[in-house]
């Protein structure tokens, strides 16, 4: 089973990387970009019987730092 874990900074947490990328986009002449947030995509290939609780635990314990990050688990198939 293929899983994608999307990790993103929580709303309200300052994202210096996103701000720098935003600035760079403007520098390239792209207008109308309101905001940029940089996150992380982690792809996992796990046994088909891996439960949701185990996936959550993986995110909570290692893949995301829940002090500053949210995560979203997507089952790709």
């Amino acid at each position: 089973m293929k899983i994608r874990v999307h990790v993103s900074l929580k709303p309200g947490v300052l994202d210096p990387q996103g701000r720098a990328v935003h600035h760079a986009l403007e520098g390239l002449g792209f207008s109308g970009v309101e905001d940029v947030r940089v996150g992380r995509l982690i792809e996992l290939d796990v046994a088909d019987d891996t439960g949701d609780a185990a996936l959550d635990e993986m995110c909570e314990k290692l893949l995301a730092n829940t002090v500053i990050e949210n995560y979203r688990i997507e089952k790709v198939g």
Partner: protein
Amino acid sequence: MAFRAAVITFPGSNCDRDMAVAIEKVSGIAPIRVWHGDAHLPEDLDFIALPGGFSYGDYLRSGAMAANSPIMRSVKRRAERGVPVLGVCNGFQVLTEAGLLPGALMRNASQNFICRTVALSVENNQSLFTAGYDSGQTIDIPVAHHDGNYFADDNTLDRLEGDGRVAFRYVENCNGSRRDIAGVLNAAGNVLGMMPHPERAVDPAHGGTDGLALFENAIKALAEA
């Protein structure tokens, strides 16, 4: 009984030797060097230091991999039993990732790696690590980091400040840290994490000796205990 300290080395640690030299300079006894893959810490440790560096190449997040390495389970148990633990720079990142200290260390607000000596103010001089300083004293300690931007939510920050757990603040905020925080203590006061490097300020040849009092006070207090 002789003072026993341990310095933990992870793959990618690069301040472990400096830390060991600082501890030996003050205590007269070379600390035990412990490798990250070791399952157990030596018995009867008086002091544990997590050094700076780039453990595991900062994969995933700074300190995240090291926080889950085998030796950290032992470090957590010792910390819970009251053994003093000092985490500097990457060591601070490891302590937050391991849940031994609150908050997280994010990319510097400027996006730049910062490597220079900065002024810190001593906010709490009642802890084992800071009692050698005066409250409000300004000390000069080098920083060298890319991810030193301390973040915690407002409630956590209020609690830390209310409980006197902010050990050091930057006199001039160099990295975007919330409320200028440079170092924090755990609730029991036996775990200190800080981004600046006191072990790089213990010899006149370093350009300053303001870090010496941190080691002297902690080690003297432990040796007398």
